[in-house]
């Protein structure tokens, strides 16, 4: 809870920075704040188990703390990477504040216990991102991205709200656990509109994590937004949305899984096929990463589908989110530096192996991790998903996932090949700021370390 308060406070401080003229100090303050939030988070671990705030609207149990931790770590690295993104624009402080408020929303999503906090969390997280997506004011594409994101996001929010209303109409409560007990008590006699409500929630959440067939906004928005904002969207926002799905469907609606599991299976299958085939055909790296993030979303949804409420699947999701977020930070960090001249095509990576060997090596590790090759963290992430899935009746989906992830290797390797095999027109060296190099190297090392020692976080939950 303290972490949430600290971040909100930071957001307000960031807005005051312009008036009181401490813009230069803002980044250190924010970083310190995030560290502090993480520290309080860490101290609550295993302690306040079950203690809730605001009439059980929010509770920071271990699950919430673990995912908040992932989000905060990612945010910490992101802010260092984004250092000069904030310097470029005149309205720095607004950007700081917006990102911080988006983080507040994300943390709310990890900890909500009530449908109203779910809705608040999603809105608090999304609205700043609509603005940030359009933050390159003179770029048509960026404006298009912001606009599309806003329209599609609002549509999804509409679905979400309607779904919540229908569920409230049937169960008479916003509280997750009360809804759960309502389901257990009235399995036979639930009104049809309750089911409609559940499916609407599912659709809304699939919009947010951009699972097919609700993914159409994602490639355009990812491509149009400034690279670092895309990084933010594909790491922190995704992670937060997944905790929300995990909580909704594995806690509240787990007893009526026969209702939503078939739908979810189709959504996953479509996501796997569409994303991997489309990604293989992209020449714009950001667009490719957008499609690849859809495929990763499908993998994470598979854990929810398996619906084994056990330590195994929660661990799998925690691990996957962390592995994916860290891998993406590396990938986007490198992409950001490589595409400074405006070329985001795959040819921007040509000859990077010569132009900046360190960066090329980090990118290779990131790509291998996203592709799921041992001994990177991405491999164990995939492995955990496979283990949760293999006990279920959805073996066909597992085979599909295996097949499509082999296709996935195709487009990740394309970048590695471009870096080492193709030569660029000019052999100019890619210069990277020290702080950014540090972040990229550090996240690469983390990718390898948790790939070799998955026990570090692979068994956080035992119940």
């Amino acid at each position, binding site marked *: 809870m303290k972490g949430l308060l600290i971040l909100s406070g930071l957001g307000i401080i960031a807005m005051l920075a312009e008036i009181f003229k401490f813009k230069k100090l803002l980044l250190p303050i924010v970083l310190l704040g995030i560290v502090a939030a993480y520290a309080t988070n860490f101290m609550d671990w295993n302690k306040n188990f079950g203690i809730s705030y605001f009439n059980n609207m929010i509770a920071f149990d271990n699950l919430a703390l673990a995912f908040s931790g992932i989000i905060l770590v990612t945010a910490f690295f992101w802010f260092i990477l984004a250092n000069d993104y904030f310097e470029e624009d005149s309205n720095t402080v607004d950007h700081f504040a917006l990102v911080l408020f988006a983080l507040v929303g994300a943390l709310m999503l990890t900890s909500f216990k009530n449908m109203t906090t779910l809705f608040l969390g999603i809105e608090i997280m999304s609205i700043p991102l609509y603005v940030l997506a359009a933050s390159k004011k003179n770029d048509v594409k960026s404006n298009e991205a912001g606009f599309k994101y806003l329209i599609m996001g609002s549509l999804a929010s509409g679905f979400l709200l309607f779904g919540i209303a229908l569920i409230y109409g049937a169960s008479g409560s916003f509280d997750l656990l009360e809804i759960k007990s309502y389901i257990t008590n009235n399995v036979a006699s639930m009104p049809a509109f309750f089911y409609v409500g559940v499916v609407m929630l599912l659709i809304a959440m699939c919009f947010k994590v951009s699972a097919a067939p609700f993914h159409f906004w994602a490639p355009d928005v990812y491509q149009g937004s400034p690279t670092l904002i895309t990084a933010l969207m594909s790491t922190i926002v995704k992670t937060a949305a997944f905790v929300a799905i995990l909580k909704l469907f594995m806690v509240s609606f787990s007893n009526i899984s026969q209702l939503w599991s078939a739908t979810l299976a189709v959504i996953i299958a479509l996501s796997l096929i569409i994303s991997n085939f489309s990604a293989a055909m992209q020449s714009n790296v950001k667009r490719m990463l957008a499609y690849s993030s859809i495929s990763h979303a499908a993998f994470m949804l598979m854990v929810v589908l398996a619906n084994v409420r056990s330590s195994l699947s929660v661990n799998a999701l925690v691990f996957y989110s962390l592995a994916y977020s860290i891998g993406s930070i590396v990938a986007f960090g490198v992409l950001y530096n490589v595409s400074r001249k405006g070329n985001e095509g795959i040819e921007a990576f040509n000859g990077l192996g010569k132009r900046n060997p360190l960066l090329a090596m980090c990118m290779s590790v990131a790509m291998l991790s996203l592709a799921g*090759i041992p001994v990177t963290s991405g491999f164990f992430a995939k492995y955990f998903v496979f283990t949760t899935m293999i006990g279920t009746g959805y073996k066909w989906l597992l085979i599909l996932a295996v*097949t499509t992830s*082999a296709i996935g290797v195709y487009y990740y390797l394309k970048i590695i090949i471009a870096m080492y095999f193709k030569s660029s027109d000019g052999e100019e060296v890619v210069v990277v700021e020290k702080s950014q190099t540090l972040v990229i190297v550090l996240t690469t090392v983390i990718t390898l370390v948790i790939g070799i020692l998955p*026990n570090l976080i692979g*068994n956080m939950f035992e119940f």
Partner: protein
Amino acid sequence: MLTLLLIAFPFLGALILFFSKTSAAKTIALGITLVEFIISLGLFFLYKHNPDNCQLSFEKDWVSNLGIRFDIGIDGIGLLLCLLTTFLLPLIVLSSFKNEYEKPFNFYGLMLVMQSALLGVFTANDGFLFYVFWELALIPIYFICLLWGGEDRGRITFKFFVYTLFGSLFMLVGLIYLYNHTNVNGLKSWNIIDLYNAGHALNATQQSAVFWLIFIAFAIKMPIFPFHTWQPNTYVNAPTQGTMLLSGIMLKMGTFGVIKWLLPVVPLGVEEWGGTAIILSVIGIIYASCIAIVQKDYKRLIAYSSIAHVGLISAGMLAMNQQGIQGAVMQMLAHGVSVIGLFLIADILLRHTGTRDIDKLGGIRSMNGNFAVLFLIIVMGAVALPLTNGFVGEFLLINGVYQFSPTLALFAGLTIILGAVYMLRSYQKIMLGERTDSNVAFGALAGSDKAVLIIVCIVIVTFGVYPKPLNDIAEEGVKQLLTYIK
């Protein structure tokens, strides 16, 4: 502990090379691989002295809550392949002394990493560890082919990587499925014996499914018809040392995998589908031999001959009898040695005459008699003439297939005739006959090349005349394996 040293030593050597960026990488790599060979000889004598020596295994928890252990150890068949790997690596390094590679420290470093991973595959006693080493072996060879390969390397290595990874992922699913069926006091386990038991407990349909999931990975790696399409281009395009690693050792990962990780795991599945797989292998033998006959590029010819050889190996071991599996082990060793000699010869031809095109070569014997003799001995080994090391394995293999089905043995036996056709025919064209314009002066062989060829020839003849030490270990290993199958 010694087994751990065996795996860790080349890896540490590789790290030294990566970070020192020394230009003397060749010599250092040669030194490291020679020391490694001595370590494995040590293992060999320890094992011969006392096969149950506890020093030879090493266990440690890795991911304890999932039952994953770092569990390595030596058994008969694994020992032979470790010997093969550690014996071939110095030869491969030595054979590269005449080639100048850019950034040699990376090249040799990757080679050593690859050696580590291969030895890991041959010694792993934990299903998960086996998979990790299996995949790990793929990454260095991918970069070796990508960074130092020929013309069209981007596209070709890519196909190679995706193809093999595709198979591996299915194997992973199969292994996880088995793991899910293990039960050791209520816990799941990745230990090989537990996986064997879990496999045996499955019914025939489940075993068949697991058989195909796992077999595809091995079939692609070997490769068996119709999963072979990545192989010829990759072999031809890779740098010579990469090709040697691929065909000399990496191919054995597939055959070794079948012997240790497939036959004892799902015997019913093998009984059900082994026949189909043998037919595919035999088709591969004939098909690849026929294509080899009409090849113009000598390196490509060897690539196809490799498919034919591995087809016979796989047919023999899938027959699941003592002779077949033992023959497969012996033939793996023989093929590894002779194919390295052949690929070196292809490289020598290219370096001395500027071409590997069989039609453009001729009359080299009159220019370099020593080379002709060495080449001939290696060719004899490859066509499995009696008193060469290839003969023992091939004889046992055909014997094994015969016990399974005489008709199939008849077709599989064609490999002897067809092999003789393409091998001797190409030898004749290259070495005998009229001199052609392109090779007016062949010149003397370089010292390092000569050394490698002579060592290969010595091994071919020695173990052709006296195969007993290796054969005894293979026989014991296979007997032990068959107890798991029955």
